């Protein structure tokens, strides 16, 4: 069954999009991160213009994070103060990111930049996850039940000015650090259409030293508002948000997420992370091949401008 996407201006099989949404939802359910960083490259593979894929994916991220945020708020796992400081950086970052996106789009380099950033980001994350899960796997095989060591050290955190007390996170750190983290995530969110949870969550744990209980909820809080900002700005400046595309991805995600969390409960975490890292690396490799391979058509067309 084909459906015409009014903004992407092409018709595509509904089930391809639902399936993609479900796959992203599956990942979200399994790992607690939004599947945006895999869904966007896959949308590009199936022929959606990268600019539309990124902007519509940001729209989908809103739905994803609002449903998780509901649960996290109810459980009291959101550090609103930390969330607000992160969000300050996130808003500035995403606004700057959309401006950068628009500039790159106008000079005809946005597709290239999206592809390169995805290759760098996915291969880094994929390799880190793969080595981590292999190491854990080997360690557990050698002496099962060994406790994990302490994960973070404070070095940079205590030297910066503008210290703030974050009661819920039990932290007394410079506000500049979360603002900076939020800023970077905001830029990523605007250019890549991702929520950025897969970068934000490790940054919150390892860089800010937040307790893991509040990390997911607080990152959801920041991601929700940043994604909304990106959606709004993309709609205003580039007109690239396709709500039909976003809605199909959301619907797929609704189906995929519970399957993912059920799978996650059954399979051991090491195996899950290993599988996920292989998947991420495969997508990165495919994107890299696209960049390296001689294109069948070295030409492409920019936007049509009707004659007056």
């Amino acid at each position: 069954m084909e459906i015409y996407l009014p903004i992407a201006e092409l018709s595509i099989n509904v089930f391809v999009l639902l399936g993609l949404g479900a796959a992203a939802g599956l990942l979200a359910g399994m790992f607690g991160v939004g599947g945006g960083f895999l869904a966007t490259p896959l949308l590009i593979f199936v022929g959606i213009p990268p600019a539309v894929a990124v902007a519509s994916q940001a729209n989908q991220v809103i739905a994803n994070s609002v449903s998780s945020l509901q649960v996290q708020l109810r459980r009291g796992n959101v550090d609103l103060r930390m969330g607000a400081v992160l969000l300050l950086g996130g808003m500035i970052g995403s606004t700057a990111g959309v401006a950068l996106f628009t500039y790159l789009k106008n000079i005809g380099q946005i597709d290239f930049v999206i592809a390169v950033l995805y290759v760098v980001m996915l291969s880094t994350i994929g390799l880190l996850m793969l080595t981590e899960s292999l190491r854990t796997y080997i360690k557990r095989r050698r002496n099962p039940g060994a406790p994990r060591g302490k994960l973070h050290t404070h070095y940079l955190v205590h030297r910066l000015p503008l210290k703030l007390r974050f009661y819920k996170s039990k932290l007394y750190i410079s506000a500049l650090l979360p603002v900076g983290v939020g800023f970077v995530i905001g830029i990523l969110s605007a250019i890549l259409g991702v929520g950025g949870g897969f970068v934000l969550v490790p940054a919150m744990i390892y860089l800010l030293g937040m307790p893991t209980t509040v990390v997911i909820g607080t990152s959801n809080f920041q991601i929700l508002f940043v994604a909304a900002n990106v959606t709004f700005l993309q709609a205003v400046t580039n007109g690239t948000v396709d709500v039909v595309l976003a809605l199909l991805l959301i619907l797929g995600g609704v189906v995929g997420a519970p399957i993912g969390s059920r799978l996650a409960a059954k399979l051991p975490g090491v195996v899950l992370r290993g599988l996920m890292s292989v998947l991420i690396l495969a997508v990165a490799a495919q994107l890299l091949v696209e960049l390296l391979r001689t294109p069948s058509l070295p030409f492409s067309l920019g936007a049509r401008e009707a004659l007056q």
Partner: protein
Amino acid sequence: MRRLMMILAASFALAATASAQGPRIDAPTPAPLPGTGLGGSTVPGAPPSVPIESETPELIVDLSRARVSITSAFHGESILMFGMFDPPGEIVVVVAGPPARETVMRKERVLGLWLNTGRQAFLDVPAYYAIAASQPLQRLLARGAGGEILSLEDRLSTIRPDGSRDPAELAKFRNGLVEVKRDEGLYPAAIGQVTVQAGRLFRVDLPFPSRLPEGVYDVRAYLLRDGRIVAAVSRPLPVGKVGFSAQLAGWASHDGALYGLGAIFMALLAGWLGGALVRRL
């Protein structure tokens, strides 16, 4: 001057008959004067004119649909053009999309990676261009009297570049443009087949791909005799989004802020409902 008067008269006559009866026929497009025979004298550079001899049109055409509607279920469409002509003769149909400024970008390998390095804009690029004929086109136009019937190559040789560039480079960009358009199904490489029945009825399927730019397309049918155009009829074919997708696209382009807020609200609602639903299960 006299010729001009006669063109006007013929146009009015045709318009009158058209409004009085059956299928509407637009005023014939100016076509080269048949002259007095093979050696007929046509002034070079003079505007082509319509054959005047008949008040009854020699060529009647219609389309199976008045417009191409891009709905949510649109995945390309085939429109049938059919009609009748006074034999003998051959039929050529030319479909041209609205002209627009298009930017062609060229990728080159830089440090092993392929990225856009050059761009060239052209000012009046037809969104779509297809030709169909009842006989191989070369044979029909062999005598060089095809007049305004242009092959894709001829049509594109007339597009104007925005800014100046080395002619060889321009040709490369122009070829690139054709390749991309062909890849999208907008410049079909093959000449379509016009089927003629009983010597005077004709029909032709005009295929439109799913990635179809909007605008008013021009569908033109020509009646040729001895390699000359004796009659030409033009039909406008509007291509546009309708219904839900039209509303959404219009909304997105006219009021991006409201559209953006709507998109956010939609996602919030869908996410909230979806989440509630999943937790129920």
